[in-house]
C-alpha cells in the first residue's frame, strides 16, 4: 500500500508540484481564517483576542434575527438581487447573441467595447455621475422637462420606491457588457458546420439562435446562473453606499450595508461575523437548491 502510494506520487511528481502550492495557499488563506468564525459566538475584542474574549453563545444571532429592521434589510437584498437576476441575466445573453449577429467587424468591436466600458469605472465615480444625472437640474429632469413630459422636476433618488429600479438599472448598465464576454467566447466555440447544416435545412436566424446557439452555450448559461444565485445575498455594498441617502434608506439598506453600519463601523466584529455566517449559510443553501433544480430540469449542473 505504502509503496504504491510512494510510487504513484513519484511517478506524477510534476503534477504534484503544481498542485501543492495552491493547496497550501488555500489552507493558509481560506481555511485557517475560518477559525475566525468563532468570534460570532463571542463578545470579541481585538485586544483580548480569540482566546481571551468571552463566549456569549447565540446572542449575536439573536440580536439580528430579533431585529425588525433586519427583515426589511433582507427583503431589500433579495428584492434588488432578484431584479438584477431576472432582468440582468437574460439581458446579457440577449446582448451577446445580438453582438454576435453583427456582421461588420469594426462595428462589432466598437459595440462590444462601448458596452463593457462602464465596468471599468468604480462605483464612487458612477455614483457621483448618477446622482447628478438624477438631480432636480440633472440630465434626466432637463430632458423630461424640455419634452414637456413633466411640469415639475422629479426627485428620483429621494423616492424610496424608485430605488430598486435605480439600483437594478444602473447595475445592469455598468455590468451587462462585461457579462457578455463569456457568452461571446462560448458562441465562438460552436462548430460553424452546425449553422451551415441548419441553413441548408431552411432555418431562419431566429430558429438558428434557438436550436443552435442557445443549446451550444447551455452549459455556460447554467454555470453563470448558479454562480449568480450563490451570491444573491451580496447586493453590492459599493453601489449601496454611493446611492443611499436618508430618503431612500428604507429601500436601499441591504445586508452588506447593514453589517457595515451596525457591525464594522461600531467595531462590533462579532455581530458583523454572525450576520456574515448567516448569509453564507443561506447562500450555500440557495446554491445547492438551484444546482439540484437545474440538474433535474436541464441535466446540467456544476456538481
Amino acid at each position, binding site marked *: 500500500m505504502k509503496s504504491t502510494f510512494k510510487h504513484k506520487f513519484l511517478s506524477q511528481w510534476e503534477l504534484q508540484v503544481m498542485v501543492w502550492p495552491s493547496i497550501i495557499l488555500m489552507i493558509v488563506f481560506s481555511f485557517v481564517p475560518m477559525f475566525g468564525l468563532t468570534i460570532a459566538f463571542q463578545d470579541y475584542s481585538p*485586544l483580548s483576542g480569540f482566546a481571551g474574549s468571552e463566549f456569549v453563545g447565540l446572542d449575536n444571532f439573536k440580536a439580528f434575527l430579533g431585529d425588525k429592521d433586519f427583515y426589511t434589510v433582507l427583503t431589500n437584498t433579495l428584492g434588488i438581487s432578484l431584479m438584477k437576476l431576472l432582468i440582468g441575466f437574460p439581458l446579457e445573453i440577449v446582448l451577446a447573441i445580438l453582438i454576435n449577429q453583427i456582421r461588420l467587424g469594426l462595428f462589432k468591436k466598437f459595440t462590444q467595447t462601448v458596452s463593457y466600458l462602464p465596468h471599468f469605472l468604480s462605483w464612487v465615480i458612477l455614483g457621483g455621475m448618477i446622482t*447628478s444625472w438624477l438631480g432636480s437640474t440633472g440630465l434626466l429632469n432637463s430632458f423630461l422637462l424640455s419634452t414637456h413630459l413633466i411640469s415639475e422636476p422629479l426627485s428620483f433618488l*429621494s423616492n424610496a420606491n424608485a430605488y430598486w429600479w435605480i439600483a437594478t438599472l444602473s447595475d445592469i448598465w455598468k455590468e451587462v457588457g462585461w457579462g457578455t464576454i463569456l457568452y461571446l467566447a462560448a458562441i465562438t466555440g460552436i462548430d460553424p458546420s452546425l449553422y451551415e447544416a441548419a441553413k441548408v435545412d431552411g432555418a431562419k436566424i431566429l430558429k438558428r439562435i434557438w436550436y443552435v446557439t442557445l443549446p451550444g452555450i447551455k452549459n455556460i448559461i447554467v454555470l453563470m446562473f448558479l454562480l449568480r444565485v450563490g451570491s444573491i445575498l451580496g447586493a453590492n455594498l459599493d453601489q449601496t453606499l454611493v446611492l443611499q441617502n436618508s*430618503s431612500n434608506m428604507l429601500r436601499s439598506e441591504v445586508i452588506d450595508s447593514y453589517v457595515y453600519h*451596525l457591525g464594522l463601523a461600531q*467595531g462590533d466584529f462579532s455581530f458583523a461575523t454572525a450576520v456574515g455566517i448567516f448569509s453564507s449559510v443561506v447562500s450555500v443553501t440557495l446554491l445547492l437548491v438551484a444546482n439540484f433544480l437545474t440538474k433535474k430540469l436541464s441535466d446540467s449542473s456544476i456538481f
Partner: protein
Amino acid sequence: MKKSIILLTLVALVVLLAGCGGKKTSEELPDSTIKVNGDTPSWKNDKATAELDWYINFDWFAQTWGNDVSSKYITKDTGVSISYLGGSDDKLNTMMASGDLPDIITMDGNNPFVKDADKFAIPLDVLAKKYDPYFLDKAAKPETLKFFTRDDGHIYGYPNFSNTKSDYEKGGIYGNQAFLVRKDIYEQLGKPDMTTPEGFISALEAAQKLGTKDELGKTVIPIGVSPFTEENPEKNGVFNRTLADFIGVPMLTKDGKYYDRYTDADFQKWLKVFVDARQKGLADRDMITMTKDDKDARLTNGSYFAYFASDLNGEPDPLSVWGKEHPDKEYIAVNGPASTIGNKTVLPGTSIEGWTQTFITKNAKNPQKAMELVTYLVSEYGNNVMNFGREGETYTIKDGKPVLNPDLLEFKQTDPAGFEKKVGLTTHLWLQDSALLSRQMGISQFPKALQQPKKWTQDYVAPQFELASLDVYLSKESSRNKEKIDQNWAQTIAKILDAKSDSEVDQAMNEFIQYRKDNGYDKLVEERNNQIAANVKKLQ
C-alpha cells in the same frame, strides 16, 4: 497525509494565537535615567536620543518627520525623532489583535478602542511620576487632566484641541456653524430680519422674486443647507443640532439630565418653517440627495441666497473662490433662525474632550523618552515651537504674542500645502493646544473668506462639557441601538422635509418616537445620563 494536515492546522493556530501576551505592565518600567523634578521638564536634562514609532489612525495624514523646520527643532530639543505610521481602522485593528504596537498611538477620541485603553496603554500619570512630573505639574491643563482621569484613578490618553472652561473665559474660541447670506442680495432686500419664522419665509420669498442669476445663469435658490452626507460632521445637514443650537434648544433639562431636543416644541415649530419653505419651492430641491461636490459647486457659483452651514471649517475653498471673484457679493454671516420663546443662540466650540487622544503603549521601547516628548508637545513652550518655530529665527514676540516672520506668514497664506511640507508649523498637531494657538493668532488664523463668519460665532460660542464623550462608553447593545435610532432619525427628517402638511410631520415624528421606544431608547438615555453625571462630577 492526515498527519500533515493536522500539523499544518496546528502551526496555523500557533501563528494566530501568537502575539497575545508579552506586554509590559506598568510595574516593570525601567528606572529613570536622570533625576527628575516637577519644575523642569525632563527633556532639558535628559540628553539621550531615541527613535520612536508614532501611529496616527488617519490615512490622510502623510507627513514625515525631520523634513520640515518644525520637527527639526523638536528633535534638537528633545533628542527624539519620530517615524510616523499612518493608517485607518483596519490597520489599527490588526495591530491591536496582533499585539505588535508602536511606541505612541493617536486615534479619534470616539474610537471604540479608547474604552479599553487600560489594555494597551501605560497610564500617563504613572509615566509622568516616574520620568517627568512636569507633565502633571505644569505642562498639561489641570481641568483636562481631571476630565480624563478614569475610575481607576489613571489617565491613559491625552487629547489634542481640548478646550477647558478657562480657555472659554480667556476668549479666542470660535464656533463652526453659521447662517450665511449673499451680501448683495441681502442688502438689496434691505437687510431683512430672518430670525423669526415669518421674517425668514418672507425674506426667502423676496429673494426668489428678485430672480437674481448665478454664475451659470440659473436663478438663485433662496436657501440651501449643508449636505446630508457622512463626511459632514452633522449627518442630516443642519437638522441634528445646528438648527437647535441656533434657536437655543437646551442640551440638558433643568435638573441636569439628557434633554430630548428633537421633540422640543420650538424645534418642531422651526422644522415646520423649513417644511413650509420646501413646499413653497424656496429650498434646494436636492437638499437631501446632493453630494459634497454638488454643494461646493453651488457655493462656488453663488447659487444660494442663504446657506445654513453646520461645518464652516469645511467651506473655505468654495467660499474663497466665490468671494475672491465677486468681493461685493461674498457670503457673510448674519443672525439666522432664532428662538420663538426667547432662548439665546448657543453654539458649541471644541469641547474639553478635544478631537484625538494620544497613548503611550505597553510595547513602548523607550517609555521615558516617549513621556518626555508628550510633555514637551503638550507644554506651552512646545506648542510655540510646533506652531511658530524658534524665537528670533522664525518668529518674534510682539505685544506678548508670537508673530511669524512676514515671509513665512506670506508663505502660509498663499501656499498652505507648501508651507506645511517645508515649514511644518501647525502640522504636528496631535498634542496641540488649539485654544492657545487661537488666542495667539486671533482671527487672522482663518482664510479670509471665513474670517467674518468666524468672528460672528464668537459671541455665541459656549462650553457644553457635560455632554463630552457622551456616546463613547455606551454598552454594545446601546451603541447598536444608537446607530439604529440615528438612522431612523435620518429617514424621519427626510420624510418630514418632504411632507405635504403639518399633520404628516407630526405623524412622522410619532413614528420616530415609537421606533426609538421599541429599540432601547430608555436604556440609551439612562446610559447617557450616567455619562453626564460622571462628567459633571469631573468638571466640578
